[in-house]
């Protein structure tokens, strides 16, 4: 399932919504990304812009790719947009499988692909001004390894 939303999420209830439906889920892999304050605590806020409709489409595609590559019972991606503050949750990836290896690998894959293939752009707001976050070469490598 894909959710693109402004509001925060509760990982416990999101996970339980899925595990309560299937008693053969043995392993759940989860990744949560948060807004980092920065080394000098200089980040004041971060605004996530996205491309509505394309975001959902791309996340579906990435999610389906994970399902073809690993044995998953279910999977969930929640991605927030709008203005967020240091410590806020940005993204949740959760993968549900009978066995841990499929869940963990698919979870890592999903967050790696999200980084360079989901149409979000991050504006970091600090006292020194606003800067658009640039693509990292380490993220490109991480996406290409799959």
């Amino acid at each position, binding site marked *: 399932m894909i959710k693109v939303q402004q509001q925060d999420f509760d990982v416990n209830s999101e996970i339980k919504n899925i595990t309560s439906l299937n008693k053969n889920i043995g392993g759940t892999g989860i990744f949560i990304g948060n807004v980092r304050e920065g080394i000098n605590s200089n980040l004041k806020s971060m605004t996530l812009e996205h*491309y509505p409709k*394309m975001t959902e489409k791309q996340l579906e595609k990435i999610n389906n790719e994970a399902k073809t590559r690993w044995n998953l019972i279910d999977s969930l991606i929640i991605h927030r947009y709008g203005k967020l503050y240091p410590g806020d949750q940005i993204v949740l990836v959760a993968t549900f499988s009978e066995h841990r290896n499929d869940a963990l690998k698919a979870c890592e894959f999903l967050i790696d692909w*999200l980084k360079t293939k*989901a149409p*979000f*752009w991050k504006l970091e707001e600090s006292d020194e001004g606003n800067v*658009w976050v*640039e693509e990292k070469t380490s993220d490109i490598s991480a996406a290409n390894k799959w």
Partner: protein
Amino acid sequence: MQIKYFSWVKEQIGVDTENITLNDGIETVIDLINHLKNKSENYNKAFKDTSIIRCAVNMEVTNLDQKINNNDEIAFFPPMTGG
């Protein structure tokens, strides 16, 4: 054709969406970019380095040599930074 801009591409151009009708000479994304660059200095600046411009045609990421037509929704933006 609807064109959408995101992130600093949008900021430099100054609008987030515009509608244009394609001239005969515009067959690919790169043709469209060259056409837009002639509109004003803002466009020219935004599209100066096409290596850092990404494009989606009908919400699918494509290369700049992708063929386009008047019914397409085109979007220009910097490399994506999701997650």
